């Protein structure tokens, strides 16, 4: 049916035109083309032209991004298979670069560093490879070299990826102000994916939380959720703030949300402690069982290294031999301050105090603003009769962040009280 101009004019009404106006006024930019849509698109390209290397590497990259967003390693496996296929045919630059990211994600740090270093020699202007190299070196505890890689990255291309990395570096090497400033720049930089921006916001929130700026931390976590609603790490961050504030129900709720998105074992560990604090032993046991299931699955898959699991077992004072084995195995693949700290804690729980102190000293060497490091050092010193150091370290932990952990901060406070003979101030943020 053709419509004449007169028909159009006669069909106009104030109501219909008003609705047009509303739509114009509320016009939004094109909806974002999210990772799932990209995967679908690239899969269709590969399906139509399976030999096309460009399409295959694009699909592998989208799978890797999806892994970031979901922690579903099936996507990483798919990416890995694609990259294996491409690299068997051709030493494709993109495939090589993505292969490095897969290796790093699988915690094959020395291999990732070796490959990345090779790529930076071959392509000195390749920004992502400098990032991958720095990431791997950081995990391996080679901080000076990691910083050089990140600074090279920043020099080549200031942006989210370089600000984020350098910010984290400065934070853990004892310069939280600079770390926070750089992370703020990362947040403000253009992000290719909403998840990338949310990741930086969570990192920023973590820095605020660790330095007891709980309100700022909460704001960053909420902004992360507004940016990427499936950010389980943002929910976990919010939970840690709520727990520090003594709002256990809110903390539990947020950890459960995080757990429902991605069942990271650390969420089960935190929920266990929160349920115990709330007097719900049955729910706490369920979370402990969940931790054990993960441990069994990892064992069945011959995954021996897991510092997160090691820390949980040590915190829960159970499976302490296994905790130490897990920490030692993780130490075989990375020697950063976090692994040293977990190793120290597992050694302490196994009453190997001298070894624990040596490992703890290594954890403290960067003066990272990590209350947990100081707490562990304090408890180790106390067990060795070095009460002055113990009191100092425990005070450092509680001064840095009085709510660093629902259970451990309480122990720190009680221990310090016993040591100095006076009541410690309760948890108060800055």
């Amino acid at each position, binding site marked *: *049916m*053709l*419509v004449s*101009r007169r*028909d*159009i*004019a006669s069909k106009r009404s104030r109501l*219909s035109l008003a*609705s*047009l*106006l509303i*739509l*114009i*006024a*509320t*016009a939004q*930019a*094109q909806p974002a*083309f*999210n990772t799932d849509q*990209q995967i679908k698109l690239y899969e269709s390209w590969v399906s*139509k*032209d399976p030999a096309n290397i*460009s399409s295959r590497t*694009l699909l592998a990259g989208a799978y*890797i*991004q999806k892994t*970031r967003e979901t*922690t*579903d*390693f*099936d996507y*990483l496996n798919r990416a890995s298979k694609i990259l294996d296929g491409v690299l068997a045919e051709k*030493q494709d*630059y*993109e495939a090589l670069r993505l292969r490095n990211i897969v290796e*790093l*994600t699988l*915690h094959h740090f020395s291999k990732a560093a070796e490959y990345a270093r090779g790529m930076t020699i071959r*392509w000195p*202007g*390749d*920004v*992502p490879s400098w*990032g991958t190299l720095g*990431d791997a070196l*950081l995990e391996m505890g080679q901080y000076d070299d990691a910083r050089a890689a990140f600074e090279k990255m920043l020099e080549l*291309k*200031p*942006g989210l990826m370089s600000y*984020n990395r350098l910010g984290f570096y400065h934070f853990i090497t004892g310069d939280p102000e600079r770390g926070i400033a750089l992370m703020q720049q990362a947040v403000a930089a253009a992000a*290719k994916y909403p998840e990338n921006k949310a990741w930086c916001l969570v990192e920023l929130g973590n820095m605020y939380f660790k330095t007891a700026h709980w309100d700022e931390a909460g704001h960053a976590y909420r902004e992360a959720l507004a940016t990427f609603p499936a950010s389980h790490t943002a929910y976990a961050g919010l939970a840690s703030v709520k727990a520090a504030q003594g709002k256990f129900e809110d903390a539990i709720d947020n950890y459960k949300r995080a757990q429902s998105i*991605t*069942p990271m*074992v650390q969420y089960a560990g935190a929920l266990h402690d929160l349920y115990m604090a709330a007097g719900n032993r049955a729910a706490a046991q369920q979370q402990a069982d969940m931790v054990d299931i*993960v441990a069994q699955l990892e064992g*069945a898959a011959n995954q021996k290294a897991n*510092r*997160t*699991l090691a820390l949980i077992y040590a915190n829960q004072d159970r499976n302490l031999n296994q905790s130490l084995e897990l920490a030692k195995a993780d130490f075989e693949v990375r020697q950063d301050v976090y692994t040293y700290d977990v190793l120290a804690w597992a050694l302490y729980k196994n009453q190997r105090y001298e070894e624990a102190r040596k490992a703890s000293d290594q954890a403290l060497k960067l003066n990272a603003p990590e209350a947990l490091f100081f707490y562990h050092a304090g408890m180790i010193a106390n067990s060795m009769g070095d009460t002055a150091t113990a009191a100092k370290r425990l005070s450092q932990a509680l001064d840095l962040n009085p709510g660093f952990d629902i259970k451990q901060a309480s122990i720190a406070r009680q221990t310090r009280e016993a040591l100095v003979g006076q009541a410690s101030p309760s948890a108060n943020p800055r």
Partner: protein
Amino acid sequence: MFRGTLATVCLFMMPFASLAPNLKAADHRDAPGVDGAGEGDITDVFAFLDPAGNGRIVLAMGVNPFAVPGATPSYRFSPDYLYQFKIDRSGTYVEDLVVQVRFENTATGQQAFVSVGKPVVTGAVSQPLLSPNSSVNGAVGTTFGNAGAIQVFTGLRDDPFVFDLAQFNRILAGTQDVFRNIPTSPLGPLRGRPVRADGTSGVDAFGGFNASYIVVEFPVAWLGVSKIINIWATVSASSGELNGFTQFERMGQPAINTVFIPKPLKDAFNQGIPSDDNARWSQFIPDALTTTDNDGTGNTISARAGLLTALGLGTLPNGAPLLLPATFANTTKDLLRIALLPDVLRLDLSREPDDLAIGAFGVTNGRRLGDDVIDIELRLLRQLADVNFPAATKVPGSGPARPGALTLGDPRVTAVLQGTDFIRPDSTLGDVTVSGNDQTFLTTFPYLAPPNPLPGEAGTTPFPSPNATHPAPAHQ
């Protein structure tokens, strides 16, 4: 339910995948990879026949968008990149002739090396020509070669692109509705720029800026054909393999990547090749209206023309004149896809140099420096792009959502409503062969206007005159 045994792996330093490789990007900083280095960021591509009718073809590509005159010495071409014009003479959208340009730094500036010949390999990976048909070299900032054979200019020129990019971005952001303010209309007041005393309302975001240009001219006879050829430009970086260069940037027609490709895919688009374009990108180009009603609401080319007229958008001062007659004949919904993809400039060597041939076998016949490509595209899209209006409006195209149509909530729809960005005086808007560039183009090679002067040089205001004892620095 655990999704896998690796769910416990700590992701605390899982790297950003950075799906964009170490890229630059396209069309005046329009893609995510662009930030950082402009030497590989193509601003525009032109292909036209020598306007004097001497049987020569002219190809031009710009990089270094928004080059500021005050920082003139800082703009260079990258010695690490391979710049290419790719030409398909057989209709396959695969290059069978290439013009390759590389640069080397010298003690006093840069030297350009230009070769023309059959490509060693085709596609997104390139290799330098082994046995070029022709090679010349010369200093950047100069014209070199032979006016009877290949002639080349490389260096800064005035950016010939004209567009009210700032207002376009406001429309996309939803803070403005249209290019020119319409205080009262059947749609109510539409927010836009006010009309100035001289009858214009737009602001050319590229006015006063330069770009680094590669301009190449050679005899049409070298092409060996006298029909339609396809042309596009690429920039590639060393792939690390011997003599290998991987493409990270490309452009054919203006604004394809900018307007139609979703942001996360822009870099993938730039890495692609024209022969893949139809299969990969057609879904992002809207359906075209046809002569017959395609959805039962009277949604035809004729009805759209009527709607624009009824809304007062087909006449000045609120809209440019319609480009196509209401009786424009079209039988395929794929018309826009056919015109816009593959992303190449199509130049009919048998036509006169000034024959625009709008819609004859693409958007336009090649692209001349002065063509008002923005107005042409805005006007074609407002008359041809299928738009799904809300059912309550009861206008042609209203009703339930249908795939292939843009929706009124998409700001790209309101951006094209007026069919122009009103940079030129209203009295000239009927002519789309003049873009209203801020500088006058040359009538001879290299055709592009000289670069905008450094602040304080003649032609700039309101700077005081430079000290006569100090010579003005030379442009690159």
